[in-house]
């Protein structure tokens, strides 16, 4: 029909099992979507790297990713920009009966780390340990690995604690594992009280400038969907198959973590906090995570007018 052709098409890369998929599912039942001036074209992608490839190759207009990456890309000339989506963050988890209660207890223990050396939480956790005058990097027995394998490691008691992504942490927690600290907690302990988003929508600035209104509308719709999921059980029930788990406790915990991650505040203050985190990560990772650029690139954060 004619109205459909007038709608702007937003091609969006969705990571399978990401929370964006939940929201897009919820949006399908959103009555206001019929009136919206945009239409979504969804490309399912298996993992974060696939999203980055998709965005770079111009096959999608928008993905969800992190701002450190956006900044480092901008430093090499790309014009990507970032708008916050969520601030859920990974966590340090131990077995229920573990003698570990604080970071200091990790000394001499076996620690499984999802991702790699450049995992943001791992870097920040080291910084935190530094404040307590000990070098976490040398005082724990590290095992890096893919998150599912790391989860298996703790289940098989091959490691004492794991630092992993939020939904893997949630799955563990639901099974009785105990959270020591999460990403936000680490930042707080490091003196950053602002709620800085961990991930957000990433898109080309040039594209965004041409579709300002549409993008803003899309973000509103996404937020609406999120509210729906967090407030309306009916809406939530519909996306339960996307969680791929029959365990009710896990489902509940995942919903809780997801809803806690909503962005309430995004302004000058948060962006400055992000800049401070950036500087911190830059030193911690010895430039590797951030690239050579000394500061967070200007324009990294997209502002809705």
């Amino acid at each position, binding site marked *: 029909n004619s109205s459909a052709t007038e709608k702007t098409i937003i091609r969006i890369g969705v990571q399978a099992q990401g929370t964006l998929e939940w929201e897009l599912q919820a949006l399908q039942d959103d009555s206001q979507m019929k009136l919206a001036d945009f239409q979504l074209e969804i490309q399912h*992608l*298996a*993992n974060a790297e*696939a999203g980055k*490839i998709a965005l770079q*190759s111009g096959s999608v207009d928008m993905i969800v990713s992190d701002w450190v990456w956006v900044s480092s890309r901008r430093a090499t000339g790309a014009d990507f920009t970032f708008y916050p989506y969520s601030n859920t963050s990974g966590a340090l988890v131990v077995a229920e009966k573990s003698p570990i209660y604080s970071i200091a207890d990790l000394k001499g223990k076996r620690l499984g780390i999802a991702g790699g050396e450049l995992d943001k939480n791992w870097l920040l956790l080291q910084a935190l340990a530094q404040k307590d005058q000990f070098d976490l990097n040398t005082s724990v027995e590290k095992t890096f690995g*893919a998150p*599912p394998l790391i989860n298996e490691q703790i289940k*098989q008691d091959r490691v004492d604690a794991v630092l992993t992504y939020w939904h893997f942490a949630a799955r563990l927690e639901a099974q009785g594992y105990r959270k020591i600290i999460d990403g936000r907690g680490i930042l707080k302990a490091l003196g950053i009280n602002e709620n800085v988003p961990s991930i957000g929508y990433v898109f080309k600035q040039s594209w965004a400038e041409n579709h300002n209104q549409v993008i803003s509308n899309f973000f509103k719709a996404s937020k609406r969907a999120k509210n729906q999921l967090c407030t309306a059980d009916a809406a939530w029930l519909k996306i339960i198959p996307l969680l791929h788990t029959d365990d009710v406790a896990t489902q509940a915990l995942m919903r809780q973590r997801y809803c806690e991650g909503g962005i309430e505040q995004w302004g000058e203050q948060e962006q400055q906090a992000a800049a401070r985190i950036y500087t911190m990560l830059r030193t911690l990772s010895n430039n590797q995570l951030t690239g050579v650029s000394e500061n967070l690139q200007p324009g990294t954060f997209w502002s809705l007018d």
Partner: protein
Amino acid sequence: MLAFLAVWQGLAVYSNSNALPAPEVVAKVFWQSCITGQLPFHLGVTLLRLVVSFSIAMLLGCAIGIALGRNKKLDAFFDNWLVIFLNIPALVAIILCYVWFGLVESAAILAVVVNKLPNVIVTIREGTRTLDQDLLDMARCYGFSRRKTLAHVIWPQLHPFIMGATRSGLALIWKIILVVELLGRSNGMGYQLHLFFQLFDVASILAYTIAFVAVIQLIEVMILKPLDKKALRWRR
């Protein structure tokens, strides 16, 4: 076959972790994904990609391999390139293909071909070097056409190399296609397997693996074995 099942069952019972589900669990998962049409769909998509990229890689690979094996100058020139292409990480090739050509089907296929082609070339080249000069001379002396020489003199001698390339080639493509699908397609076995891996759903992973192995077995029994038999019927 039964022995295999028994060993598996034994191991599963012994380890008793969700890292190795028992055969019946896998069978159930297998059956369910068949009914929902999920497995056939993804398998079909992957197989299609496999067939297309395999054909391209084999055809091109045989042609180039024979050319390099027979022509020393050409070989000396392309040898370095071959080693380079042989050892370009799958990842790099895949990323570059996708970034240049977008997340389209042809980019995926190209990525697979780029990964597989050098292997075929190397094997066939090795085979071409062992061709029997006496028979080639005979063909030349009796004025065989190029086509005739290829079909009746060269091809039968290359057969074991081609079979080797085919068998290990199917396996290699299967390994690569998984990564290709993982990084830029929204269907296919690679995509599905990654999802299962994220959920640590080993039962599903195994179910999909078995489906694929079954297909390959079918190809083996229906196509490769008879070909082998036909091609080797002259042997004592």
